[in-house]
């Protein structure tokens, strides 16, 4: 009985129009890493929010250490030694690490027995100790604004450890991390488990679960599908249970048929705002019917290449040709018209106007020309007709049809909206930057399928991705970038994952 530190029995939670958790029961042992697997909207986060005191269940009971509890608030959860490491960090960027961690639980001392003050020195020492114990490698006196994303995440972990959490919930912790950082984090989580903590990991990345989790509960559409022993289950089986159908992780594609050259980039150099060269003398070509992928660790210049081709960033050297025409100095609009579709990395602040509805966002690149507008006057009916057609064709799900504000939609459906719009432009060149980031596995499969379909129809495709697996899967040609320079361009068959990895780290050099 007391084997289980957490027991959630028959939990049901309803929201208007949706049952987020439907009679879910899970039991978690002390000292294990328990993974919660499911697609976006499967109810993982809701279930954990109940544990974290953000929601109260409509039905069902929660037992912590064998005692029945009603967790009424996050503060209450903290009292029960439950701590949550959120996907979006909640840190004050002008404060030091220590100041952020002790915020709300400041250790107060009295000077001369009278004047209260915050005992920062002691807190610093305590945090340094915690950091050392769990291998977090954090200097508590640094300011948050000077930290990398992965460092900030470690601060969040320290925050819950400082509050003496025994049960740590991680909400999609690796979504924002590079492969190296991910490995480091998984190491930390493993260390926490060995230190006697109980870990709950919310994720939809199967390989991570395989790597560190002991057991794994699969949720689908609010229902518990199965609780698995990770060691004895294949990744493929997990994916199947999660999506509820057979999943093809390896996309099968016909051999590529390259035709005429569509994009030619010659000696491209791009400087960032500080005048620092982030793209250095990059040259490559993409042919019709080819998926050219740029592999690399984050922030090595790959996004700038995409931005430069689409016209969002100024080029400081080199030329860009589209179908033989020099477009180096053309406006963004002209490039779109000449035939560039662009799915940007940051869909919320670049790809969409979140306060506009779906139909408007679907027309965002064509609103000014026929049939959407005539002589400067918009044709609202056309917006609606096209919108209705596209949400059907691309299976974009939303609460109120074409009138839904994009802000209220899930990340996967926002991405579908952008992809639908860009494919419909029928451009000979399509640029995809991190198209599958933060979308669930079913949607990933779908996006890959669409990319290959477009390729087969004779589009030239530039893919920028941080997911090596994705690149190995989809690309026909791979260019590996390191520190703003293309290290290697070769067909995907001629490269192994390991080789690409080595080029990505700048370990291998090729003289060009």
């Amino acid at each position, binding site marked *: 009985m007391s084997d289980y530190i957490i027991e959630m029995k028959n939990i049901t939670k*309803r929201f*208007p129009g949706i049952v987020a958790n439907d009679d879910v029961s899970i039991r978690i042992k002390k000292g294990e890493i328990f993974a919660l697997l499911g697609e976006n909207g499967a109810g993982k986060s809701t279930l954990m929010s109940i544990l974290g005191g953000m929601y109260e269940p*409509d039905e069902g009971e929660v037992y912590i250490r064998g005692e029945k509890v009603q967790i009424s608030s996050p503060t209450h959860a903290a009292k029960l030694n439950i701590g949550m490491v959120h996907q979006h960090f909640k840190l004050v960027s002008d404060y030091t690490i220590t100041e952020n961690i002790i915020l709300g639980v400041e250790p107060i001392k009295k000077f001369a027995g009278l004047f209260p003050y915050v005992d920062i020195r002691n807190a610093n020492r305590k945090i340094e100790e915690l950091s050392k114990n769990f291998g977090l490698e954090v200097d508590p006196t640094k300011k948050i604004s000077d930290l990398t994303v992965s460092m900030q995440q470690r601060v969040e972990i320290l925050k819950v450890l400082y509050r003496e959490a025994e049960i740590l919930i991680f909400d999609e912790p690796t979504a924002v991390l590079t492969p190296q950082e991910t490995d480091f984090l998984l190491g930390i989580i493993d260390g926490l488990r060995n230190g006697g903590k109980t870990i709950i990991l919310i994720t939809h990345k199967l390989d991570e679960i395989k790597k560190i989790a002991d057991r794994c509960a699969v949720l689908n559409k609010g229902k518990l599908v199965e609780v698995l022993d990770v060691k004895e289950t294949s990744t493929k089986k997990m994916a199947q249970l999660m999506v509820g159908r057979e999943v093809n992780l390896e996309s099968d594609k016909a051999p590529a048929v390259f035709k005429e050259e569509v994009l030619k980039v010659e000696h491209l150099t791009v400087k960032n705002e500080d005048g620092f060269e982030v793209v250095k003398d990059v040259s490559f070509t993409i042919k019709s019917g080819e998926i050219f992928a740029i592999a690399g660790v984050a922030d090595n210049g790959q996004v700038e290449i995409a931005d430069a081709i*689409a016209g*969002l960033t100024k080029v400081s050297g080199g030329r860009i040709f589209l179908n033989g025409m020099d477009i180096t100095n053309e*406006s*963004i*609009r002209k490039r*779109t018209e000449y035939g560039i579709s*662009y799915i*940007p990395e*940051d869909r919320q*602040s*670049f*790809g*969409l*106007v*979140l*306060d*506009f509805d779906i139909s408007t966002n679907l027309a*965002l*690149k064509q*609103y*000014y020309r026929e049939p959407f*507008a005539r002589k*400067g*006057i*918009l044709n*609202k009916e056309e917006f609606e007709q096209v919108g209705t057609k596209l949400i059907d064709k691309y299976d974009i799900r939303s609460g109120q049809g074409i009138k839904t504000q994009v802000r209220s939609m899930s990340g996967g459906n926002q991405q579908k909206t952008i992809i639908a719009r860009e494919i419909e432009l029928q451009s000979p060149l399509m640029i995809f930057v991190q198209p599958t980031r933060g979308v669930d596995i079913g949607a990933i499969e779908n996006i890959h399928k669409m990319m290959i379909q477009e390729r087969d129809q004779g589009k030239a495709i530039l893919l920028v991705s941080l997911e090596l697996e994705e690149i190995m899967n989809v690309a026909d040609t791979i260019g590996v970038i390191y520190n703003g320079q293309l290290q290697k361009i070769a067909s995907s068959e001629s490269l192994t994952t390991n080789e690409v990895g080595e080029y990505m780290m700048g370990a291998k050099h090729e003289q060009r």
Partner: protein
Amino acid sequence: MSKDNRKHNLRKNFIRPISNEKWQPITIPLVSIFISFIAAAIVILIIGKNPFQAFYNLLQGAGIMPKPSYAGYKGMLTDFLSLLNAMTPLVFASLAVAVALKAGLFNIGVSGQMLVSGFLATIIVGYSGLDAIIAKPLVLVIGIAAGGLMGGLVGWLKYKFNINEVVSTIMLNYIAQYVISFFIQMYYIDPISRQSKYIEEAARLTLVNVEIANLKMDIPLGFILAIFTAIFLKFVMDKTVVGFEIKAVGKNRNAAKYAGIHVGRNTVLAMMISGGLAGLAGVTYYLGYFSSIQPKVLSSIGFDSIAVSLLGNSHPIGVIFSSFLVSIIDQGSTYMSSQAGIRQEISSVIIGLILLFSACGEYLKQKVSRLKEKDLDQKKGES
């Protein structure tokens, strides 16, 4: 149980009128106004007067309700027309703020833009001796051009040098205020009134003391233009490519740029339209409602218009109604103070309260949606 229930029902009845999201743009300002009048009534009660009497006096003074007696050549219609006369510049100014807000810009420089266009129209047309048929349209054109150029300058500074429009408009306000006051005092001063010399009737946008049916009335020609302008703006914002681009830039500059919209050009354009409207406010104020310019003073209309625009949800038609309301209180206050013995300043308190509560509209909206969620939860729990 029953107490809880009653409390719950009370809450439900309270939110019902504003719970329909489709009507919220209208219902929420109405509720805000209602609450502010209750607050104003309390203030009036505290100083020992009858609030209903006071509100009725306000309406009488504004020409909405008849007064018990009128002076010679005066009537309810006279009062109503002077209400419209005073309201005209406020409508233009609020439209100016609203257009800038749509583009995500904050035009605090309406007062300065009003002053510059009013001054230029005054010295170019006001003393020129031109016929009314030429003079009046010319005044409008100069108003739009001067205001538009000044607004465009602000937009250009923002686009070219990334100078925040709030800073540049405030600075331009000061420059306009003192430079123009210098010119008025050096060249155009009327030694008796200590203001600029009165302009000729031909150039004035309000027809003064027109005698119709034994009443002497001020007819504000600009008012009709203001209504048409509001309708036209609504059309531009909702139905045209220009409006679409301005709104896209206002909602998300990055995405607008990504979609191929020229962000800089639209910033300048939106500020030019905003400035042009402020210019119209300026000429209808200095060459309509008044016929001279007081040196060293910026009109408060430019600042009131920010709040009026917010109260009207930055919607061109909404702005007409919010200007109407604020003008009624403003215009009726003189009569209220003489009849009810309430100081005129109280009307400023009421306007202040309305604007204060209208600023809380967003809070009300959130509160309502949260209560609705709770309600749904409860209903589910019961069933």
